[in-house]
């Protein structure tokens, strides 16, 4: 399971190529890429702060949990920090599994944990000022749904 936290941009196509070629027994690969969104057309940049050390450990833990829960062959998480322009890729996850349902579910699970339990904070800086992005109730609800799922499923 591979986890990277970095300031530099990454190439989604190159990452997916490398990810896929390192897979040997999976029939399904799923990826998600998150981009800097500019809802109002006034965003100058997004600043992402994180907690070095804890961030990497938390992402590794979520990747390991997803791997075990969904029987993934492989998982990848890349998350950037620092200053990002609208349209730039903030982060990506990729999962590989025998079949698509586990690959999709593994990626979804990773995203839900990453959004609310990995120590990242986003600040939107626009001409009118700057504000820290607030956490959403629906993100907590998504996490709660995973823990409500019946205990270890047979797969």
């Amino acid at each position: 399971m591979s986890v990277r936290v970095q300031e530099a941009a990454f190439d989604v196509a190159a990452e997916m190529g490398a990810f896929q070629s390192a897979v040997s027994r999976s029939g399904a690969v799923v990826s998600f890429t998150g981009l800097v969104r500019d809802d109002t057309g006034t965003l100058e940049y997004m600043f992402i702060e994180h907690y070095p050390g804890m961030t990497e450990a938390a992402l590794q833990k979520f990747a390991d949990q997803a791997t075990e829960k969904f029987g993934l062959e492989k998982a990848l998480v890349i998350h950037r920090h620092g200053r990002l322009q609208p349209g730039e890729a903030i982060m990506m996850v990729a999962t590989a599994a025998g079949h698509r349902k586990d690959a999709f579910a593994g990626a979804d699970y990773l995203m839900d944990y990453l959004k609310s339990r990995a120590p990242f904070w986003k600040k939107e800086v626009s001409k009118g000022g700057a504000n820290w992005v607030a956490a959403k109730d629906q993100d907590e609800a998504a996490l709660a749904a995973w823990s409500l799922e019946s205990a270890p499923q047979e797969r």
Partner: protein
Amino acid sequence: MTLDILYFAWVRERVGLSQEAYQTSAATVADLIAELVARDAGYAAAFADVSAICVAVDQELGDLTTPLADCREVAFFPPMTGG
């Protein structure tokens, strides 16, 4: 004991520090917050609504009741917004 206390995002901005070494005998996270709030207005502003604050003790998420015995690093921050 001496703790390293870290602050992130708007908690950092309100406190005016990203990190400090702090001498305390606080038994729990709640005790530590009470000590910090008494120090000055920046801390009081940062911790005005503790329900809006998350805490990590030695880089593991905790809560107000988490004990601080033998811990070295405490971090305070708003709810996380990754992804």
